[in-house]
């Protein structure tokens, strides 16, 4: 935590920019982990809610001339309303069917933004006014750092409350959860709305940071990256998605010169992690701790015998 607070003083603007973007993905990954990980609703439209939030906010500020906070608010409200509707539609579907419905929703939204270009700017994109007057990344760094911390706290509070019990019970066995008195309808919709609202707010801020938003934000690749961050970091762990997003974004920047080969390397990492540590980096750390302890125990035993 203190490292992330002090870090900007030791790195160039370029790297500050990189980490700010990484924070955006960290929040997205943490949100998807709540929905796809803990609750088991494999949604493929999580990045779409960020896209919606970004456009809703930018349009509110640009077309209606309202202040930023109104933009962020409208981004949040629009995503909450849409995720409520989608959550109700998705109540009775699971697994691949839920994935397909949410993917279709993502495509509809993205295509709509492209087609309604007179209003949205279409593929050329939409200028989203900068939140802070300058394009210097430092204030944005702290903004996204705070948002990340807030998101982590919010999700941790939810998972530690009784809602966390319900969501995990629903993922394990929805029928049994209902038979045990859990209002699965309410909590499944909640599990849809909370991360989507979070994505909406984050997307809205992100738009006012990058300055030019386009339907690319809602492409399937974006969604796949978020899932990859969660998987690499460790699904159903609280730190996993954050660790995954930041470390992979960092790695991708280090490998920037290698251009497309990066994707091959990333894919190879995903395959290796899936094969050997399907709990991701968090499981790797846990096991590494175990190895160290084992070695310590062995050497302690050895030195004891020598005496």
């Amino acid at each position, binding site marked *: 935590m203190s490292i992330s607070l002090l870090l900007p003083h030791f790195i160039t603007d370029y790297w500050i920019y990189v980490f700010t973007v990484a924070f955006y993905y960290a929040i997205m990954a943490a949100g998807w982990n709540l929905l796809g990980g803990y609750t088991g609703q494999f949604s493929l439209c999580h990045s779409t809610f960020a896209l919606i939030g970004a456009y809703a906010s930018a349009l509110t500020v640009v077309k209606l001339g309202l202040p930023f906070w109104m933009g962020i608010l409208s981004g949040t409200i629009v995503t909450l309303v849409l995720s409520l509707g989608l959550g109700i539609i998705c109540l009775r579907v699971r697994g691949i069917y839920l994935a397909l419905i949410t993917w279709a929703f993502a495509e509809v939204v993205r295509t709509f933004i492209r087609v309604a270009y007179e209003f949205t700017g279409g593929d050329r994109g939409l200028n989203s006014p900068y939140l802070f007057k300058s394009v210097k990344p430092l204030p944005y760094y702290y903004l996204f750092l705070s948002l990340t911390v807030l998101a982590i706290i919010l999700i941790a509070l939810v998972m530690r409350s*009784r809602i966390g*019990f*319900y969501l*995990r*019970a629903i*993922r*394990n*066995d929805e*029928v*049994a*959860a*209902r*038979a*045990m*008195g*859990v*209002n*699965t*309808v309410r909590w499944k919709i909640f599990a849809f709305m909370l991360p989507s609202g979070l994505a909406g707010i984050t997307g809205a801020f992100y738009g006012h940071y990058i300055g030019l938003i386009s339907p690319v934000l809602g492409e399937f690749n974006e969604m796949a990256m978020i899932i990859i961050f969660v998987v690499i970091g460790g699904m159903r762990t609280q730190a996993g998605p954050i660790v995954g997003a930041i470390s992979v974004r960092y790695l991708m920047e280090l490998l920037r010169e290698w251009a497309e080969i990066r994707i091959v390397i990333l894919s190879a990492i995903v395959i290796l992690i899936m094969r050997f540590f399907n709990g991701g980096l968090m499981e790797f750390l846990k096991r590494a701790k175990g190895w160290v302890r084992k070695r310590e125990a062995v050497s302690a035993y050895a030195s004891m015998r020598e005496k």
Partner: protein
Amino acid sequence: MEGQEKQVLRLENVVRDFGGLRAVNHVSLQVEEGEIRGLIGPNGSGKTTLINLITGIYKVTEGDIYFDGKRISGLQPDVIASLGIMRTFQVPRVFRDMTVLENMMVPALSQGQTRQEAKTRAEELLEFALLTRLKNEPAKSLSGGQNMLLQIVRVFMNKKLMLYVMDEPFAGVHESIKGIILKAIKAMNQEKGITFLIVSHEMTTISNLCPKVSVLYRGGVISQGTMEEIANDPLVIDAYLGGQ
């Protein structure tokens, strides 16, 4: 309420169709408060379907189900559970990735108990079920019998429990676990006055445990009474031995 006994559960002409198949055919059944009622019948006679109808997992095609005087057919399973009817499943349905203790917490938290209260109660029940040493293990590491035991004691976490519907609680469990289950049923029935409706194929156990037994055959109740009475009922003999 007619009679001195209070009816906890009343099914009136309940019908359930699956497409062209009538799984439950005009079943009327009453269970009185404090009873331990057995429900037997050959495979495919509609016992599990009937449980699914009572607990709201299936909706009735026709007829009504009343619990404690209130109509419950048409309500959602979680609402029915909150009213005081809970159940177990033939194949134990535990929350596999959650620990034994966390499994116990779910029905208590969903019914508004505080975490501390729930934990204390869970620990008492786990002690009773001899599962204490496994309380922090994920449920998936338990054996089949332990899973059955866990799903059975988990229901007792609900303090508002009035009617406990069990689907084959003795199937495939070791004698020692069966002993614990029987002890739990008797204790909860005597101390808390909980009513039980137990589906089972274990005739000896049912005849020892249940003063009154109902027999389901081809989706309908064909006989009712003590085990001795129904064992001599020609309709029941026919049903079980395949009437020629």
